[in-house]
């Protein structure tokens, strides 16, 4: 059996977060009643003309600059001609030969920590189509043109990915990036971020690419992974059983976790692309491009590097904390109050307690019920030994649910740590006196019982004995 190499390229469609459509003044908001956000231009009435939304151009340029691509000073809109009821003009306006963005790159981190650079062939502006509705209509299909004309940035990668995992890592990275840039809300359920995957396999070591299948419209990271895995297995099995892959478009069935043929290359449309004579070429001068460059936020990789270096965090931690601008900002605000020397403590709490509370309550970081200032006030109580880390978790829960400050919770529940050596020693003495058998065993070399004594003391104090002090005092008592 041959050793196979998987080759994957992704075409990601990111819906640009403009208020109005790419060629009309209609709103782009999601979820409006059918056809209430479609004007005469979207409905392709006779005589209407498209007018390009400058905001969509600005967003595309922003993306291009963020991936180190060449932003074209001249790009051209073309018409992609085909008939379908959700495509009112009978053509889609897209960029074909001269896209606005070309030749970018993006770094992804693989499972083993290695960094891989994925090529971005191009990114171009285009309009989305409407939707056909079949539910609740007897013997008819409905057309909803609210989505028709919504601006999309189609981001086409090189066939640089070698596994489903790499494809997901790349897609996640793009997802992070477009949200950083505030050019796409990244909402995958609403279809704001989706992708087509081009998948092929070839015997390892062979230069020539295998025949590819294109899996359409994948709208979750999990589906991307599953669909590619299924498709790779299908292609290998097909070839190994003497068949050959045909170039075709396939659909992923998320219920059955399989891909199905949609249409083959022979049935493919001839789209008869040609430059759209209703739109002038998009001419961008260097000054405009530089102005947009000036609006770029700190990018995820830069932020992660800064976190790793400035706060002595691991690459993993830095990566997690920079996965969104909001999370990064939350972390930084926490550290700002707490002091950079305690950044690791802050990182652990943001990635631990805060993240799990958010997940549990299905909240975004922006809606966290404990603010960075409140969190740092809590962590300060660990640092100054008022409470232990364990108690701090209880305090955090109370803060989250009751919207109180750390000090108020500590005060109200009497959780303040015991730091009086005499008091701790008194408890230790009592515990030792009550457990002579364990004491003897410990002294005969059963070191593990140290933990038992710690547990007993904390049980007696309600966990409030300062752990460091307790450690030290107990050690002394046991060995005396």
């Amino acid at each position, binding site marked *: 059996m041959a050793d196979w190499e998987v080759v994957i390229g992704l075409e990601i469609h990111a819906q640009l977060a403009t208020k109005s459509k790419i060629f009309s003044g209609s709103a782009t908001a999601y979820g409006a009643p059918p056809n209430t956000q479609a004007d005469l231009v979207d409905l392709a*009435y*006779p005589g209407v003309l498209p007018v390009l939304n400058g905001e969509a151009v600005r967003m595309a340029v922003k993306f291009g600059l963020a991936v180190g691509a060449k932003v074209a000073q001249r790009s051209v809109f073309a018409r992609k001609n085909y008939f379908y009821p959700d495509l009112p003009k*009978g053509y889609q306006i897209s960029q074909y030969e001269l896209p606005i963005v070309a030749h970018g790159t993006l770094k992804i981190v693989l499972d083993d920590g290695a960094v891989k650079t994925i090529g971005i062939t191009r990114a171009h502006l285009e309009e989305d189509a409407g939707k056909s509705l079949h539910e609740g209509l007897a013997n008819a299909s409905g057309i909803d043109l609210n989505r028709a004309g919504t601006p999309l940035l189609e981001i086409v990668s090189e066939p640089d990915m070698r596994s489903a995992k790499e494809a997901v890592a790349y897609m996640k990275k793009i997802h992070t990036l477009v949200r950083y840039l505030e050019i796409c809300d990244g909402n995958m359920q609403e279809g704001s971020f989706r992708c087509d995957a081009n998948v092929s396999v070839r015997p390892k070591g062979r230069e020539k690419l295998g025949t590819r299948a294109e899996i359409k419209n994948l709208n979750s990271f999990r589906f991307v992974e599953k669909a590619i895995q299924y498709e790779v297995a299908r292609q290998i099995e097909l070839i190994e059983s003497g068949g050959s892959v045909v170039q075709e478009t396939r659909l992923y069935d998320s219920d059955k976790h399989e891909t199905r043929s949609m249409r083959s290359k022979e049935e493919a449309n001839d789209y008869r692309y040609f430059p759209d004579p209703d739109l002038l070429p998009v001419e961008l001068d260097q000054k405009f491009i530089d102005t947009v460059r000036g609006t770029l936020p700190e990018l995820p990789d830069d932020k992660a590097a800064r976190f790793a270096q400035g706060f002595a965090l691991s690459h993993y931690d830095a990566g997690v904390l920079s996965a969104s601008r909001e999370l990064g900002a939350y972390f930084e605000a926490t550290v700002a109050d707490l002091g950079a020397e305690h950044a690791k403590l802050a990182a652990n709490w943001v990635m631990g307690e805060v993240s799990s509370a958010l997940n549990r309550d299905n909240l975004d970081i922006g809606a966290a019920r404990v603010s960075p200032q409140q969190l740092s006030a809590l962590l300060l109580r660990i640092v100054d030994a008022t409470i232990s880390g364990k108690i701090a978790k209880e305090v955090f829960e109370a803060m989250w649910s009751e919207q109180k400050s750390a000090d108020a919770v500590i005060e109200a529940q009497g959780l303040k740590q015991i730091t009086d050596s005499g008091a701790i020693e008194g408890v230790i003495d009592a515990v030792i006196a009550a457990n002579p058998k364990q004491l003897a065993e410990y002294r005969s070399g059963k070191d593990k019982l140290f933990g038992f004594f710690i547990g007993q003391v904390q049980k007696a104090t309600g966990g409030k004995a300062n752990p460091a002090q307790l450690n030290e005092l107990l050690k002394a008592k046991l060995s005396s």
Partner: protein
Amino acid sequence: MLHNLSVGELAERLNSREVSSVELTRHFLARIDRFSPALNALITLTADRALADAAAADLRLGRGERGPLLGIPLIHKDIFCTDGVRTSCGSRMLDNFIAPYDATVVTRLKAAGTVMLGKANMDEFAMGSSNETSYYGPVKNPWNLNKVPGGSSGGSAAAAAARLAPLTTGTDTGGSIRQPAALTGTTGVKPTYGRVSRYGMIAFASSLDQAGVLARSVADAAPALQAMAGFDPRDSTSVDAPVPDYTAALARPLKGLKIGLLREFFVGLEARNAALIHDALKVYQELGATTKEVSLPHLPASVPTYYVVAPAECSSNLSRFDGVRYGYRCENPHDLMDLYKRSRGEGFGAEVKRRIMTGTYVLSAGYFDAYYLKAQRVRRLIVDDFRAAFTQVDLLIGPTTPTPAFDIGAKIDDPVTMYLNDIYTIGANLAGLPGLSLPCGFVDGLPMGLQLIGPHFSEDRLLCAGHGYQLATDWHRRAPQGYE
């Protein structure tokens, strides 16, 4: 009689309240009533609305408002969307289409106070040179009812010639204003591409289409063009450049004007036609212009170039007519493909289908380079030829058409012969240049047109040259018999 007065004279009488807009409107409505059935110049008459608009204009006049077009009746080519009024584009496809909005041209002329009498007949989707492709039947030429009026703005031209309105609008993609103007003895202006908004003008070939005016004289056309011209944010191809005062430009002297005689236009031109152009040149020389012969070597490739570019764009522009949202829909479609095929098959006429098929073919994989791309390259050469010519001369001059109006039915079954009718007009469209056709005499009792072509945005110069010619001649004052 009112219908023989110029737009300027009519405006004077309206302004002095000697005549009301309602009276004027009634006068032209009566003429339409009397002549249009035989001419078939109109697809839709909007008499009630016209009278209401006229009454509104009279109110404005009564309040002391003044304007060169305030209260002046006109007829719009049925290619311009008119809010609440059927806009058929001469096609069965849009026979039931009530436009929900006004084209920018309509909005602007309305704001200037014009009164719309109705919508003019035209070749289906502006595809034709004889007005015989209209779903509503051919338009007759007022000079001889057996002859075509030219096309595609044939209804507008016939209406202007028959004095059914002092002004009519038209569109010109390959000569559709100038050729019918020439064939009906009227004056037709096709502005620079981008001078007038295309918003609301049903597209035939987007890179060539341009709206303009047909009238009985340059002086009449000037205020209408003034009202129509200018940047429109709703048309990305309209140009944001100042619009000169066209009426003021008419008075400029022609002395020193350098006129280029287009050599290629005279190759094979019938002697009687050529003689008319040379007569016109003499008029210009007497007015102080100088003339020289210039050559545009790639101009003979205009027709084949046009018949690749225009159908290519039309094949895509007309895809929206699919029976789904508006317009003609076939009876009882049994599935989506059937809906498409029969709605389009039944809704479009033969010439439109011919061009859609040609256009689809030239854009198809494997043929695109050989046809579409090559045509674009030739188009560039033609543009360069004109640019070079305009470094030597101010204007180019030649005939508008190779022959006078031909018999209805004579060419309709021979598309290539029909297409050659536009041999002299297509170049200006390919290069986006303004063109003007002026009546310059008669051949076999039928009017012939003199064509002037200028550099981009030289409408003022063209109109001035045209007006100078019309001050020195009276061809434009001749009325067809029975319509005086």
